[in-house]
């Protein structure tokens, strides 16, 4: 199993930390992982993205041109990465702020209204965990146990009291993710 994915959105949406939790969860499941972020000018207030690769075998290139899965959280990233999903791959997006929804018919498209749901939950900060939950529903590549362990590993201990809230957000994501188009 090799999952090559990109998570892309604005800086501050939790793109990098979602990738980090995914990578740590992969380690908990004894996989090889690589987390390669955009850094520098694009991170300082602009778009942010991270390439995460989870694999059973040694990972070669940390930089990719096409992805099994793209999680897209703003229009700029949609413009850039919709075309980079492999045919038959997965595109998961939050429609908030998206004016041109994906049009490709050779990929599986899912949407999650995570911005809205996080406001309803009274905590916009759990936005990325709602998206993460949706992702794991659509691409169940890791066991929920290991994801929980990965979450605990990637949070400093002083934030461990927030784990239940994060798990709740992920559950929410699992529930509200919608199928838009399936190949």
């Amino acid at each position, binding site marked *: 199993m090799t999952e090559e994915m990109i998570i892309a959105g604005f800086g501050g949406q939790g793109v990098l930390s979602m990738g980090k939790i995914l990578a740590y969860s992969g380690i908990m499941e004894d996989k090889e992982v690589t*987390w390669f972020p955009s850094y*520098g000018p694009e991170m300082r207030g602009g778009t942010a993205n991270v390439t995460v690769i989870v694999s059973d075998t040694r990972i070669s290139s940390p930089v990719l041109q096409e992805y099994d899965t793209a999680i897209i959280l703003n229009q700029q990233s949609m413009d850039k990465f919709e075309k980079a999903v492999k045919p038959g791959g997965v595109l998961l997006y939050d429609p908030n702020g998206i004016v041109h929804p994906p049009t490709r018919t050779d990929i599986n498209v899912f949407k999650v209204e995570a911005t809205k749901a996080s406001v309803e939950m009274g905590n916009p900060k759990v936005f990325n965990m709602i998206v993460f939950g949706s992702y794991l529903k659509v691409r169940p590549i890791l066991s929920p146990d290991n994801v929980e362990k990965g979450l605990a590993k990637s949070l400093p201990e002083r934030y461990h009291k927030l784990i239940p809230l994060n798990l709740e957000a992920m559950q929410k994501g699992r529930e509200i993710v919608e199928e838009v188009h399936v190949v």
Partner: protein
Amino acid sequence: MGEIKLMKGNEVLAEAAIRCGCDGYFGYPITPQSEVMETLMVREPWKETGMVVLQAESEVASINMVYGAAATGKKVMTSSSSPGISLMAEGISYLAGAELPCLLVNVQRGGPGLGTIQPSQADYFQAVKGGGHGDYKLIVLAPSSVQEMNDFVDLGFELAFKYRNPAMILADGAIGQMMEKVELADYKPRWTKEELVEKNGDWATTGKPASRKKNVITSLEMASNDMEVRNINLQAKYRKMEEEDVRYEAIQCDDAEFILVAFGTAARVCQKAVEVAREKGLKVGLLRPITLFPFPKKVIKELARKTAGFLSVEMSAGQMVEDIKLAVYDAGSNARVDHFGRMGGIIPTPTEVVEALEDKFSWELSYGVKRSY
């Protein structure tokens, strides 16, 4: 099995330094390697192992602090990124001239000048050909994963002390910023003065007892004859490195008609390019130099006798390609050597590499492989 963690390459450098019994780190922040000192400052190793961590006022100060501390036989290091290493060049030449062991880390960014903060490999010449003045060489290690960022700290110190010579880890912004699974080494205690002398001989300025002559650390020799002897000895040392400490990894080279040669991040991209090329039916292998000096000449000479061509893939305008050409020339082979690179902080993609290979070796691919002899 050691502790498993998910860490950035830069963070791992700091952690590995603490764990391998490093005595001191002197540095000055610069993107994309600032996490090295940040991690050290958060970890506060002076409380744990007694390791000194000091932010100097500049790179020039850092490298001269390294010089002073290394003269006492301590395991000391500094890290920076390209423009910062240029500032250190004078001090590095002095360290090499005075035969002082130390570990230097260059997490390269694009140049020239202030350049960009994105990853690059354009400091190859600077690292392996000198950079500072005079006939000197550094031991240069090129990690291509976060695990190797960890492993090469200890290895770098080991080689530096074996040869009494500065060692450099030549990484790039991608390896520094990337997080991967890493197995951390177990803690090794810092050397005591007695252990230092026992392991490395009695050359350092550790405090002169009445029983021995004074140890003098200098790179200055006023008499030309003496200076030439020093140079001859240095050259002999560099030849010994070439005999004993060449490291490389050969991936699918046995049946390869074309060989990609790449180090660091470019080697990771090329590993994928080999997969892509093989799927297309092209017999492509990858040679990954791990030591850039000493350069794996011998294996390239061997491969040159059975392959049609080498493509040096670098995040630069083509620097290592010159060393490949020299090795192929030495072999008396007519294998063709070409280069493909991206500059300015851009990492090539695996598909680009395969396309470049097909383009540059289109003759060989169309008319059949031209055997070298």
